[in-house]
C-alpha cells in the first residue's frame, strides 16, 4: 500500500487504531487490487462508507476495506 494518511487520532499501534487510518480513493483502490472507478461504485452502492477530508475529498477508512476483503459483503 502506498502513502497512508491518518486524519483523526494518532495510531496507538493496536488494531482498532489502525483501522481508523483514512485512505484516498486511489490508495484504497490500490490496496484491494481494483481501480478508482470501482471504489467509487462501491461507495455509490453502499458497500463502503466513506468520510470526507476538510477539502471535501473522499476518504476511505481502512476498516471499511478490511471488512470488504475479509468477509465479502
Amino acid at each position, binding site marked *: 500500500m502506498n502513502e497512508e494518511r491518518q486524519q483523526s487520532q494518532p495510531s496507538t499501534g493496536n488494531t482498532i487504531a489502525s483501522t481508523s487510518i483514512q485512505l484516498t480513493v486511489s490508495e484504497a483502490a490500490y490496496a484491494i487490487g481494483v481501480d*478508482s472507478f*470501482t471504489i467509487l461504485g462501491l461507495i455509490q452502492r453502499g458497500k463502503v462508507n466513506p468520510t470526507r477530508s476538510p477539502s471535501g475529498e473522499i476518504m476511505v477508512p481502512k476498516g471499511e476495506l478490511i471488512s470488504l476483503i475479509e468477509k465479502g459483503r
Partner: protein
Amino acid sequence: MLKRKGQVVGSMSIVPGSTVRLTPGQLNAYTAAFEAISPEFDELRQMQRQVDKLPHTILEQPSSSPDTVATVTAEGIEWQRQAQLLTLPKSAIFLCRHPTENEFAIIQQFPAESAYAKANGQGEILLKSADAGHLVSEYTGWAQHTLRFMASNLVAHAQRVAFDQFPQHNPGRVVRAISERCLLAVGESLTVMEPVRQTIRHARGIGV
C-alpha cells in the same frame, strides 16, 4: 506593469478546458495541483470516451455462436457474455445473459489475483433485467454518475494541494480552472462564470 491584488496580470495564461485566466504564480499552482490528479484525470477521460459509446455497444458486438461463447461466473451461475461494455484498468464490465432464463445482467469481472476478487468472487452482478437494452441504458446513467463523482473527487484532491502549497496565489481561482477542466472531461458544459471577484468560497469544486 499592471497588477491586481498585488499580482501581475499582464501575462495571463489560459489552461486547457477552462476559461479562467491565471497569473504566472497561479499557473505554477495549477500545474502542481493538476499533476497530483493527472493519472486519475487520464483514467477519467478514457472512461468517459467508453461511456459515450455505450449506447451503441450492443449493436456493434458480433453475435457469438453458442459453442464459442465466453462465460463469467457470478453468484454461482455461468453467465454468457454478450458484450464488453467497459474496460477498466483492473477489471471489465460485461453485459451477460443467463444460461437458461430470459434474464440479462451487467457483471464486473476482476482478475483472480486481486484481494477484492479473492473475498467476493471474480464476477459481481451490478444490475439485472429481462430487457438488455433497458439494462445498458440504466448502466450508462449509473456509470456517468460515477464519472461525475470521480471528477468531483479529483477537484477536491487538487484543492487540497492548491490551498496547502500555494495559499498566496489565489488558490480558489486555480481550483476553479481545474474544476472547469474536470467538468468538461465528463461532458458537463461550462456554466455561467462569475466574472469579477474571486474568493476562496467560490472555488469549492464540483459536487455530486
